[in-house]
């Protein structure tokens, strides 16, 4: 399949690194508004053509799949143009700025018989997949509650909070944190289903150009409840996922490889905390060593889920099987994202 990218910045590098390794994928072109960025990406990855106009690229290359990895406010127009050009679209999160735009895109994708996949890469990290596996085999029990919390210092001068050059994500309602909402919402949707109602608190703790640097929400969903959060002040950086099941609880740091379980087990009840503690200690040590080895031996690192998602997506597109991220899922996740935004009506 011929793949092309619109936007050759930081996240595009992760897409390109994965696509270079995927069998049956031909990287045919890359586009960026900066000629040097586009040419550099093409030269680095051995891509035959580069463009500064995505329309010209779509006309010249006729790709089968287009990755949209530009700033979020540009996604709608570029994804729509790619669909019109007959390509499947894999779009970085947040896919769009409004639900109306998303419904417009998914409608057009359906009419054209093309796929529209939003990047929920953390769903495909090892930890959520392992929790799902235990759920499917009945070991975990039904999920009662999920807690997803990102601690990430985004207040440094070289990123979202750069006071000299406004970051494109600051155009989103919620500012930089809005860039992370699809991760949180997609995890909530994965474990407890579509939301019924949600309430959120947005606050600002430290001085910066960001409108908010803290976010906390509670979600009532069809199969359970969720609490979601983001903190720019809590350190160290981590993406904590805790899933509460009827027979087991799981705790994972999605920025690393740590995954531990606390479970009901046969035997004397007073020994349960002791045995669970031993098991947890072993898992933490194994994850610490594994994380260090992972850093020294390369590979996708915390982007392991993106590689898995892209591999599954291309496989599904090639053989017509079920996509790893479905359109109803994208719509449900974005409805929750919309409900969490600071200007959303509250229950």
């Amino acid at each position, binding site marked *: 399949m011929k793949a092309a990218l619109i936007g050759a910045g930081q996240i595009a590098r992760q897409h390109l690194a994965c696509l270079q390794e995927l069998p049956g994928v031909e990287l045919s072109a890359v586009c960026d508004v*900066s000629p*040097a960025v586009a040419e*550099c990406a093409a030269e680095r990855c051995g891509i035959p053509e580069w463009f500064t106009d995505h329309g010209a690229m779509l006309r010249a290359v006729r790709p089968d799949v287009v990755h949209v990895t530009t700033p979020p406010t540009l996604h709608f127009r570029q994804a729509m143009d790619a669909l019109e050009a007959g390509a499947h679209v894999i779009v970085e999160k947040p896919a769009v700025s409004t639900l109306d735009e998303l419904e417009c895109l998914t409608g057009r994708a359906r009419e054209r018989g093309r796929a529209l996949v939003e990047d929920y890469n953390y769903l495909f990290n090892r930890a959520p997949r392992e929790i799902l596996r235990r759920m499917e085999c009945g070991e975990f029990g039904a999920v009662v509650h999920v807690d997803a919390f990102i601690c990430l210092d985004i207040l440094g001068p070289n*990123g979202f909070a750069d006071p000299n*050059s406004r970051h494109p994500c600051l155009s989103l309602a919620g500012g930089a944190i809005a860039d992370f909402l699809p991760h949180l919402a997609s995890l909530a949707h994965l474990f407890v289903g579509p939301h019924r109602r949600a309430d959120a608190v947005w606050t600002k703790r430290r001085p910066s150009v960001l409108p908010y640097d803290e976010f906390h929400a509670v979600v009532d969903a069809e199969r359970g409840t969720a609490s979601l959060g983001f903190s720019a002040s809590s350190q160290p950086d981590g993406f904590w996922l805790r899933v509460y099941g009827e027979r087991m609880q799981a705790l994972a740091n999605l920025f690393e490889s740590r995954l531990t379980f606390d479970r009901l087990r046969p035997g004397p009840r007073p020994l349960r905390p002791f045995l669970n503690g031993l098991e947890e200690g072993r898992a933490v040590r194994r994850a610490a060593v594994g994380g260090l080895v992972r850093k020294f*031996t390369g*590979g996708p690192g915390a982007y392991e889920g993106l590689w898995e998602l892209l591999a599954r997506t291309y496989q599904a597109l090639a053989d017509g099987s079920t996509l790893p991220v479905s359109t109803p899922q994208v719509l449900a996740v974005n409805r929750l994202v919309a409900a969490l935004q600071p200007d959303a009506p509250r229950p």
Partner: protein
Amino acid sequence: MTGANGFLGRHVVAALLARGHRVRALVRPVVPLHELEWPGSVEVFRADLRSTLGLELAFDGVDVLVHLAASHSGGEDFQFAAAVVGTERLLDAMARTSCRRLVLASSFAVYDWSAIRWTLDETSPLEPVPSLYDRDGYTIAKSWQERVTRRVAEQHGWDLTVLRPGYIWGRGHGYLSALGQQVGKIHLVIGPLCRMPLTHVENCADLFALAAEDPRARGETFNVVDGEGERVWSYLGAYLRGTGERGIRVPVPYRLAYALVRVAFATVFKRNTKLPHILIPCRFESRLKPLRYTNGRAREVLGWRPPLDFGERLLRTYGPPLRSEGATL
């Protein structure tokens, strides 16, 4: 001048003023200026090269652009945006003005250190593709900045001078990555007798100011070093004495360290390029490889002599601040 409030930029402003020129300093929107103590004759133009519209206004009445802006910090994409995308936008604006003269600050980083034997000079090969992309983000950004600038200058027929400084040192910037690896108080001095491509910031700034005004510099590329360079061992000793830091120097032969890095890179680390720089062979060489350096081209074409000798450089770096430093910087 872009990058005017940076470590080198502040001294280039002072050197240009000392030669009687007027300076318009491009400074990012929220950078504080009070510490710079620039005289009123320095005109400040607030802009961020990555995003500010109307950059051509900065060229109004300008005879020569001295382009120093780049970033040593941040991730690879941030450095690329700061150096390369900023340069694209700046030169695009310059093309809409009457300014036709440009002095670019490049770097020793752009050379192909693995291929060079004995002496590094302006004729030495540059890092080729694809090995360029095994180097660090700063090298990629500076290589692309020079590539973009040369293309645009050629396209418009501009007079371009490229200056490639070695390690720039001076007050507050005495510790250099060429010194090896620090582990607590222990300094592993890799190749203790190797010479480093050093240029003191005031000497370097002097050559920038000279290149900006001297017509003989047009179309030229100059490496900027003060001479053959100090040895790593003695430079680190001067640094420790000058700063009063306590440290133990442990000599490590260059060839031994390089062999270990190469073996580990190919076996244990499986050619992963996300490692610390010193564990990646091409980056190890670019920081530590023992070569000879010369400023012969700048001497020959411009008759340049570094104004400060080594004793004065040490004094200006580690001695008490001179009154004139505060006044001009």
